[in-house]
């Protein structure tokens, strides 16, 4: 299911036009992004948790050239599915 299919289904479910649904999705993603930027943890019951994680700096070596690079630290978004989700796919 790609983005277009997702929006059309969402519009159908909510009884709104796909354009409105697309705008709504965009707004919701913007909200989630803002929250994650503020290190917030988004708990969606029955689905999972959106959060951010800190990756520390590290030294990586290019195996071909032997060059060593210092990789800077970074913050990455992460998702943890809930327990229900795990069971759902293994049935």
């Amino acid at each position, binding site marked *: *299911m*790609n*983005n277009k*299919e*997702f929006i059309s*289904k*969402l519009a159908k*479910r*909510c009884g709104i036009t796909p354009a409105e649904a697309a*705008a*709504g*999705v*965009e*707004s*919701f*993603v*913007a*909200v*989630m*992004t803002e*929250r*994650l*930027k*503020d*290190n*917030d*943890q*988004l*708990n*969606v*019951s*029955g*689905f*999972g948790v959106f959060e*951010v994680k800190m990756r520390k700096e590290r*030294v*990586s070596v290019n195996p071909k050239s032997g*060059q*060593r*690079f*210092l*990789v*800077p*630290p*970074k*913050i*990455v*978004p*992460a*998702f943890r*599915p809930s327990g229900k*989700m*795990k069971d*759902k*796919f*293994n049935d």
Partner: protein
Amino acid sequence: MDAKLNHSDLSALLAKQAEISGAKAELFTKAFFDIILEGLEKDGMVKINGLGTFKVTDVASRSSVNVNTGEKIEIKGHKKLTFLPADALKEKVNQPFAMFEPVEIDDSYVDDSEEPAEGEEIVQNEAQPVADDVQSEALPEVETIAEEPQAEETTTASEETVADTAETIETANEEIAQEEPSIEEVVPAAEETNKEEQAEDIAEEADENGATEEAVNKIKNSYPLTDTAKADETEEKKGGHALLYTLLIICAILIALAIYFYPVLFGKRDGGKKPVAHATSNTAPAPAKVVETIVPDTATVAADVAPAPKEEEYAFTMVEELAARSVGSIGRGDTLLYVADGAIATHTVAADETLVRIALKYYGDKRLWPYIVQYNKLDNPNGLSKGMELQIPRLQPAK
């Protein structure tokens, strides 16, 4: 900030953002996640622009170990939900660290905190003053050695030189013990190794007694000794302080020896009696010179500074016994005083005959010629002439 937001909080935020009612927003968000679940169940993946991709992935079965029991267990293959965040989301979340970029590390970077070692220079600087001290304090031989460039070796060499000098002094002391009248000869030799100037002074004094030659010989002997010592012992290396102490001790010993023997030497001289120089070596001074040095009017010819026991040891009463003594033993500690007791013969001086030769003929000891001078009351011991008649006295040990 680090807050935990639930579904309703998200809906409220969405309502605020999209300017829609809260109920509508809540419906929307609920539909949002439900449709994701449906899409995952249907296709196994859902892609949402700006957020990322949800995927159901297969996890292969693998064997593992129960950490509690140690049993091997098999984890069955299963499916799990994964989320790949979109680049836009990653970029925005990582905004605080966006300015960082990977930096290549240069392997050639070396921590050059170490400074070049200066130990050898320090050692040389320390060793040089030691050598200077040696020069100032020590023997003339040491001075010549200390001028060599390598300070450590010179200090050791000078130390060994000192030791060798001590040996010469010891041998000199032995000679002192053996031939007491010859102290003037021995002491200069010992002093010479200590200070050359002093040695020269004493050598001059000894020259008056005709004993210069032996002193000079000793001087000559001491130099080769130290030279060989210098050549042999330069390999050894020892501390400079130990050397200094050794030098000081040896100097103290030498000074003590000098103090001990000086009264013996000069005390006699002050008394107006010059000791008879018994020529003890083969390099005896010429008889004429000896005659010059002897003061004729010495009442009792003092030929010794010997301790009393030796008199008893050599208690000869007969001239024959004196003559019977081998020439080889002459000069080894004869420290007796004799008194004239009558004449045993009358000697007519032949041509080129000297008092020494006459003494050797009658007494077997050439050192006893002053008794002849004394007995005949000769004004000029050098003035022997052919045909002169001399009374040869019978000598008996004085008591």
